[in-house]
Each structure stands twice: as C-alpha cells, then as structure tokens.
C-alpha cells in the first residue's frame, strides 16, 4: 500500500507540473517532485521514499526534460536531481521515523500505566476475595487437626464439607479470573459447535441448585428453541455467571426465571428476577469489571465483581450482545439478556 500511494504522489506531481507549466513557464519543475518524495518519506519511511525518488527522477526526465518523452540523460547535472531526491528521502524519512517512534513510546507508556492500574485493582480484589474462603478452609482444617477427638462425627463432616465447598468456590474464582484475563488480552479461543441451549440452561440451573441457591429458579423455554453455533463451555460459563449474579444479589424468597426469545437472526437468553433491582446509577456499569452492587437483605456473600463482565466478554466474542434492564415490572426486578447470533442452517 505505501508503494501505491507513493506512485499516486508522483503521478500527481506530473499532473501538477503540467498544469503549472501551461499557466506560466516554470524554471524548475523538479521542486514539485521533491514534494512527491517528501510525502512518502514522512508517511511511510525510507524505502517507499527511495522508491518515490527513483520514480520521480524517471518521471521528471521523461515528461519535462528535453528530449521530452525519452529517458536519455543529456546532461550530467540532470542526475543531480536524482541525488537530491535520494538525500531528501533518506534524511526526511529518518527524522519522521524518529518522531513516530517517540509517539509510539508515549502510547506504550500510557498503555503500560493503564495495564498496571488494572492489575493493581485486580490484585486488590483477588487478595480480598481469596482471603474469606481461605480463612474458613484454614479454620476448618485446624479445628479438625486440633480438636478431632472432641468433635462429634456430624461436626467433623460439617467442617470437611465446608473445606470442600470453599475450595470449590476458590476454583470457580480462579476460572473467572483466567477468563477475564483471556478476554482482556483478546485471547479467548472459541470452540464452535452446535449447542443445545435447553441443555445449557438446565445444567446452569442444576449447578446453582447444587451450590445451595435458596431462590426459586425456573426455566421457561419455548418448544421451538433452535440450536446455536457457540462454544458450549463458555456459553455455560456466561449464563452461569448471570444466574449466579442473580442468586448472590437477591433475597431468598426471590424467583429467578430463565427464558428465551427466538428471532430469525438471534436467540436471546433472559435471566429475570423479581428482587429489589439494580440502582439506576449502577445500571449503566452493570457489565463493568469490579462493579458490585451492595444491598441489604440479599441472600449471599459478595461476588468478585467479574461475573457479568465475563458474561459480556464471552457473548461479544460470539458476536452477540448483552443488555441489563432494571426495574422489570412494578418498580422491581432485574433482567439480564444474552443474545447469541443464529446461523441460517440451524435445525
């Protein structure tokens, strides 16, 4: 592409040269070709500029030097034009290159500072979120080590169950952190296959119930729910995070419904709860990283503030879209919609 533009620049110089000469006799048309060398030198660097120098020399010789329309070099000083073109090309491109490098360094320094900031937030969030489950694992394990003889069988089983549950929670947090890192780095690899969303929804609901969700969670899927092309594992993680988010942020007596809207071009999974809803000022940031909604009377502990950000990252990697809506009805409730695109061939 730089060479195409260089050629166009030289062609333009020829046309301008002709135009000017028809208006007034011009002693030195070669100055116009100097512009045709400067332009690629500044924009594209040395080699396109050197290319433009030779091309300018040839064009200048061919169109403007007697005998016109031949490439004979009658006088030695005509070669001087070529030498000057080349010197201008090399010096200008070197200068422009240095300026470009400096600009790039500035941008890189700024990106590095931003990455550093994100990393610090991430580390702060991680150390906070890891400490709670680690405390209870350590507490339960040391209780068992120190007081095993005094604890009844059911108390022992309870402590062991707590260790297992908290460790599973940590595993899930690690998965989410890995996912967000990959999404941020643009390195999310999708393993596309036909996915039965009915099964994804069912697995997500079953997993939430197994983890002890107190809310009523129901699926209301249409009979004609088509399959979509997606990464089964990631689609499950995205929907799982949304359902988990609803479980964490609503009171126990809430009903959470997963349903779907089928359009010719897309399938939307909707997770709707009739809980207190998201405050209006938080709603626009619902999918941002580390945004947590604190509300009294909710059932669960805090999340990492990554769940919805990951869900959005996964759905967008599928070229889909996400929407959060609150309130849903009667001033209450939250609805998160994950829209996956459909292919025409879906059965």
């Amino acid at each position: 592409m730089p060479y195409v533009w260089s050629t166009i620049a030289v062609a333009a110089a020829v046309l301008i040269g002709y135009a000017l000469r028809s208006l007034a006799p011009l002693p030195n048309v070669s100055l116009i070709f100097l512009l045709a060398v400067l332009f690629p030198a500044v924009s594209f660097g040395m080699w396109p500029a050197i290319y433009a120098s030779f091309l300018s020399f040839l064009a200048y010789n061919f169109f403007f030097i007697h005998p016109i329309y031949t490439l004979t070099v009658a006088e030695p000083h005509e070669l001087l034009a070529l030498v000057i073109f080349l010197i201008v090309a090399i010096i200008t491109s070197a200068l422009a290159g240095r300026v470009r490098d400096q600009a790039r360094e500035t941008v890189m320094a700024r990106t590095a500072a931003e990455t550093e900031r994100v990393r610090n937030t991430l580390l702060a969030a991680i150390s906070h979120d890891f400490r709670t489950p680690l405390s209870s694992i350590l507490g339960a394990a040391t209780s068992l080590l120190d007081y095993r003889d005094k604890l009844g069988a059911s108390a022992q089983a309870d402590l062991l169950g707590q260790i297992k549950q908290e460790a599973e929670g940590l595993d899930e947090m690690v998965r989410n952190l890995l996912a967000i890192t990959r999404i941020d780095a643009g390195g999310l690899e999708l393993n596309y296959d036909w996915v039965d969303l009915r099964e994804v929804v069912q697995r997500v609901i079953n997993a939430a119930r197994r983890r002890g969700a107190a809310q009523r969670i129901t699926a209301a899927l249409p009979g004609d729910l088509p399959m979509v092309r997606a990464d089964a594992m990631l689609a499950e993680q995205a929907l799982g995070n949304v359902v988990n988010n609803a479980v964490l942020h609503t009171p126990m007596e809430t009903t959470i419904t997963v349903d779907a809207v089928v359009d010719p071009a897309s399938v939307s999974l909707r997770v709707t709860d009739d809980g207190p809803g998201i405050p209006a000022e938080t709603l626009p940031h619902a999918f941002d990283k580390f945004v947590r909604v604190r509300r009294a009377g909710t059932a669960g502990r805090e999340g990492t503030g990554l769940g919805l950000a990951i869900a959005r990252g996964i759905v967008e990697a599928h070229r889909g879209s996400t929407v959060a809506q609150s309130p849903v009805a009667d001033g209450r409730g939250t609805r998160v919609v994950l829209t996956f695109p459909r292919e025409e061939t879906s059965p």
Partner: protein
Amino acid sequence: MTGRTRVLVVDDEAAILRFLKSAIEANNYEMASAGTVAEATQRIAADPPDIVLLDLALPDGDGKDVIRRVREWSDVPIIVLSARDREVEKIEALDLGADDFVNKPFGVGELMARLRAALRHRMQRSGETPVVRIGGLEIDVPRRRVGRDGQEVRLTPKEFELLAFLARFAGKVVTHKQVLNAVWGPAHADDTQYLRVYVGQLRQKIEPDPSEPSVVLTEPGIGYRLAEPRDAAMPPS
C-alpha cells in the same frame, strides 16, 4: 494380572502426589510416580503399570508426548488430568489415544470412578458388551432390549445404536466425533446437531428426570459419558 493393580501417576507436583498416594492405596492399588515426560515414557516401557494417570503440564514438555510415544507400543489405559477450560487439549489427548480425562482440580471419588471404568473396560475389551445396568435401567445389547424399572422402553434403531455405543464404553467419555463416526458414519463426523437431537430424545425415554440427566451425562465441549454401571447416582461433573 498378578498381585495388586499398579497405578503410575505422572505429575511433578508433590502435593498432588501426596494426596493421590493415600487415596490410591486406600483403594488397595499400588502407586508409582514419574515427574517428567522422559521419566514417564521410560518407566512405562521398563516396568509396565496397569494404568497411567497423566498430568498434561510437565516440566520438560507436553504430557501429550507421553501418549504419542507410549501408544506406539502399548495400549495401557491412560487417564489425562487437565484444567477444566482446556477442552481442545483434552480432545487432542483423547484423539491421540488417551482413554479418559479428569478435570483439575478433581474430587478423589470422581478420579477413582474413572480409574475403575478404564480398568474394567480394558478387561472386557476383547469380549462383547454384556448387559449393562445403571440404576433402574437395563441395556441388553445382544438382544437389543432396553428396560427401565422392569418396563420395556421402545427406542428407534438409531436411538438404540447410540445407547448401545455409549453402553459399550460405560463410565468412559466418548467424543462427539467418536459417536458420530460409529453411529452415523464418517460422512457425518461433524454433524453434532444430529447427535444433540438424538441425545435429547434418548434422555426423554430413559432418564428418570430428563431435566437432570443421570444416565447420559454431558461433557461440555467434548462429548458424552454413560454413567458408571451400578453408580448412576454419581453427580455430573
């Protein structure tokens, strides 16, 4: 087979080896360990174990190299240990000839179930599939009969072929491609949408609760697994 079943664990993390040793010995197996690709390959050749548990992340290379090399001369069952989100890696390992996989981190109960399934499957590899019983479900492959709680279940020929194929590998994972190849033929090896439709229909007919399958289990992104016989209560992973 003389004496106790011998398990070779290929992993370089001391903490993993430590808890695996107690779990494996509690199940009355013998355990040996190797920490690198080179050591694992050499050990399997010099002193063949009955089964291999193989971590794919090894200090001197990719655990898949162990599968590749060992499969040139041995059909010892190999169970791969790999992170949950590395589906592609697991499929590659299964294609190279691994028998099964367990997601890391794993529960010991799940690992032992996989181990038993792989050992059992190896012993019956030569013979045909006997009658498989999972919970109240009875699959009589030679007589092409399926019953649930004593009642006959009517399956279409394709549904039966699908179930019979899964039953042949009961307790073990089978990839989408393996099922499609065997039941629909190599021309349909990528038509996973057929598979999903048929698995859905099959579940409606044979699962006690089709919304929470306990017989035909899904391994997301990889394939399916028929629950281990006599152990249908095992929760899906």
